[in-house]
């Protein structure tokens, strides 16, 4: 505690946006015949999860970015917040924690049911300091919306994460305020695919301008802070200008509103509060007050004070424009295309085998031979090095964060995949290890021998017959800044 910057508070935040960015104009072009009113929303792009991404895999990516920025120390807790968790009964946060390599003793939990669930959790972490514990809150959302609904254009897929603990804190807790109110602006019964929402003007007037504005004012009063002193105000709202109206109502300057990524990524639902928090922290000057609110069955408000510690890590890049609306409908299961008989393969999981080899798939665990040093995958009883072949000498090693390169590759148009072509190849890892792997988020003509790669955690196969999905790591090209560093 000798470092003057050591404090209990927010240690890092991170955002993840899927690479594909669906052009809203392409969506509107298909709906214009019956829903010309969508034109006002048909600008910019929204992030869409690839077929092999869900709330779990996006949470893993946000979590990896967070841990790269601020490694977990001491005991660890992980909370996964989402209204679109893939499993109703299987600890989704446990899948994320395992992929992140968190200790088996980490306390993990799922929270759900509201767009403010993540902020509720973050407030609880900040309000009750546990100095020796690193607490991670990850929010991730992959919501479906009925074709031609406004939500289809407004929503975005993505994830965001925040880490709380003692260290070089980016921001410290000032105060927080929460209210609950069963004002049903929208709902989604368990098992239903789509939200059902009430009139937007009522939601604005009775919800945001009364419940949210009231909670913000109470929070400021509790802290003894004047609204004019709030430098950054983040309030997720799917409707345009609602946050402006709330700011005006409570007396916060319009210039303090944290800009959203609505134009390029979309509204992230349960992940939006943490995503806006990340944006605010990166923009805030030392000492600035940041107010983050989240509305949904009530309202949470969190007031933070920014420190001088610089924000680690990067923000999502511009992604890749996607112009096929039908591809989006197929990825989200809203249209059933003729995939042919090759798609009929039974992907029944052997849960016994999955558990036996769980470290292999969760953490991409291979082995390092303690006799000859050969790094290999999978971890095996006998060393793969033909000059060694030593027995039971391998120490576990994770390939998840190791750089790699393409040895050979193909784009296979015969194999079934929900996103043809099926791309795979032999991958050589720097420092040893070779794996035959699938590629993710790779363009058709992008593969070449020697291409630098990084690993991402994705859905490997879906078992539609039993409602199961299995995950594994895939290779994706290093691009942009990551390639240069």
């Amino acid at each position, binding site marked *: 505690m000798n470092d003057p910057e050591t404090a209990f508070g927010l240690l890092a935040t991170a955002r993840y946006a899927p690479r594909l960015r669906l052009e809203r104009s392409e969506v509107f072009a298909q709906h214009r015949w019956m829903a010309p009113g969508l034109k006002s929303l048909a600008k910019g792009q929204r992030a869409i999860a690839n077929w092999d991404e869900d709330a779990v895999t996006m949470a893993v990516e946000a979590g990896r970015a967070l841990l790269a920025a601020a490694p977990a120390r001491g005991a660890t807790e992980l909370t996964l917040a989402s209204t679109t968790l893939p499993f109703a009964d299987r600890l989704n946060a446990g899948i994320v924690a395992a992929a992140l390599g968190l200790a088996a003793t980490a306390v993990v939990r799922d929270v759900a049911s509201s767009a403010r669930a993540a902020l509720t959790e973050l407030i609880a972490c900040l309000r009750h300091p546990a100095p020796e514990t690193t607490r991670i809150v990850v929010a991730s959302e992959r919501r479906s919306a009925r074709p031609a609904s406004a939500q289809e254009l407004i929503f975005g897929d993505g994830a965001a994460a925040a880490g709380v603990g003692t260290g070089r804190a980016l921001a410290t807790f000032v105060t927080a305020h929460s209210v609950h109110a069963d004002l049903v602006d929208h709902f989604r019964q368990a098992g239903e695919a789509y939200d059902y929402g009430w009139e937007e003007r009522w939601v604005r007037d009775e919800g945001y301008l009364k419940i949210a504005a009231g909670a913000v004012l109470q929070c400021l009063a509790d802290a003894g802070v004047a609204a004019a002193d709030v430098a950054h105000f983040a309030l997720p709202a799917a409707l345009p200008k609602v946050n402006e109206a709330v700011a005006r109502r409570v007396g916060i300057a319009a210039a303090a509103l944290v800009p959203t990524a609505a134009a390029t990524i979309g509204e992230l639902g349960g992940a939006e509060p943490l995503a806006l928090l990340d944006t605010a922290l990166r923009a805030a000057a030392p000492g600035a007050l940041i107010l983050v609110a989240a509305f949904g069955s009530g309202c949470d408000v969190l007031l933070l004070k920014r420190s001088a510690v610089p924000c680690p890590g990067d923000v999502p890049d511009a992604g890749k424009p996607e112009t096929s609306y039908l591809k989006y409908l197929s990825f989200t299961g809203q249209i059933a295309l003729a995939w042919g008989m*090759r798609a009929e*393969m039974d992907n029944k999981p052997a849960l016994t*085998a999955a558990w036996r080899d769980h470290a292999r*798939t969760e953490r991409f665990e291979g082995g390092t031979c303690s006799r000859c040093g050969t790094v290999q995958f999978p971890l095996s009883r006998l060393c793969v090095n*033909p000059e060694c072949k030593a027995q039971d000498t391998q120490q576990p090693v994770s390939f998840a964060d190791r750089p790699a390169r393409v040895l*050979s590759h193909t784009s*296979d148009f015969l194999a079934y995949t929900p996103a043809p072509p099926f791309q795979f190849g032999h991958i050589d890892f720097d420092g040893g*290890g070779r794996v035959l792997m699938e590629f993710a988020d790779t363009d058709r003509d992008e593969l070449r*021998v020697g291409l630098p790669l990084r690993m991402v955690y994705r859905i*490997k196969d879906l078992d539609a017959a039993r409602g199961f999905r299995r995950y594994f790591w895939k290779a994706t090209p290093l691009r942009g800044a990551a390639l240069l560093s």
Partner: protein
Amino acid sequence: MASGIRDKVAIIGMGCTRFGERWDAGPEDLMLEAFNEALADAGIRGAQIEAAWFGVCLEENNVGKTAGPLAQALRLPRIAATRVENACATGTEALRGAAYAVAAGAYDIVLALGVEKLKDTGYGGLPVRTRGVANDLWLPNSTAPGAFAQLASAYAAKHRVAMPDLKRAMAHISVKSHANAALNPKAHLRNKITIDDVLGAMTIAAPLGLYDCSGVSDGAACAILTTPEIARALRRDAEIVTIKALEVSVSNGEEAGFQGWDGAHIATARVAGARAYAAAGITDPRAQIDLAEVHDCFSITEAVLMEDLGFSAPGRVIHDVLDGVFDLAGALPVEPDGGLKCFGHPIGASGLRMVYEVYQQLHGRAGERQLRRVDRGLTQNLGGHPHQNVCAVSIIGRMGA
């Protein structure tokens, strides 16, 4: 000290069905068709066969498990019969089991038969299937063209050749095999094609196009084996064809998981080839082998195998292919019967089909595609994928050659 099987086993009869989309024939029909030809060729009675080896790979798509389907189809008189499976090298594995039993002195006359009924799946290409429940957790569900396409990308990078140059040589290989199959009435694909047909075809698994891929066929092939002494006693005047070498090499995971392999060759083919040459006393394969039937499941596979088997110097196969070395009229004809590419590829039968062509050429019975002088032929049969496979190499020739 083991002395190998050179000239210890004679082939006295062979049969092979027409390969193709045999919609009206079940596996029993195919087995009987091949067996009748072999029995007539050998000039023996079925009751003289003492044991049988039965090769079928994807039994779930056709006959089911065990050697029972063979015994039933041929009404074998409750003799010993063994089913073998080693992926696409299954046919050679059946031959190997039978040959070793004769060489060991366990039996006088035995049968090796391979069959595959692939066209009962409802779609083109090989059937999709599990790789085992633990492997399915992480291994890509790759197709055969996808797996073998890897060779092309790695070969081009290793030898610093432009992909269009490699593709042109690959196209020449396919054009050659179609031309050969046009002379073979039992072949599945008998149409002649051009280089432009190959280069302009739809992509299956980049860089492999439709014509870089072999046919998926129904068919059966078989061999009746005995000792050279019994063969001589059965046919005083006949040319005795013997097995000079029959070697198998199996990947142990090194190519797949250790960075020593370059991804551009078939490691097991080099091992099995070297062992077979040593067993058969061959020191200069390009000069001493008169024809070769290799596992041309894809054009690139044939290309790299030419180097692995010592027919081309490392990195030189493109030049040899384009110079016509492996054409029917070339110095070392490869796939004179059309190969997997055009004779077709009923998996369990393919290894025996390769031997059938060498056998026919040795006897001068290869019709329009008959080569001038054949003393020795090589077959190379590959099961699995480039990085993980079973590779079988046989050398078949005249007694004493």
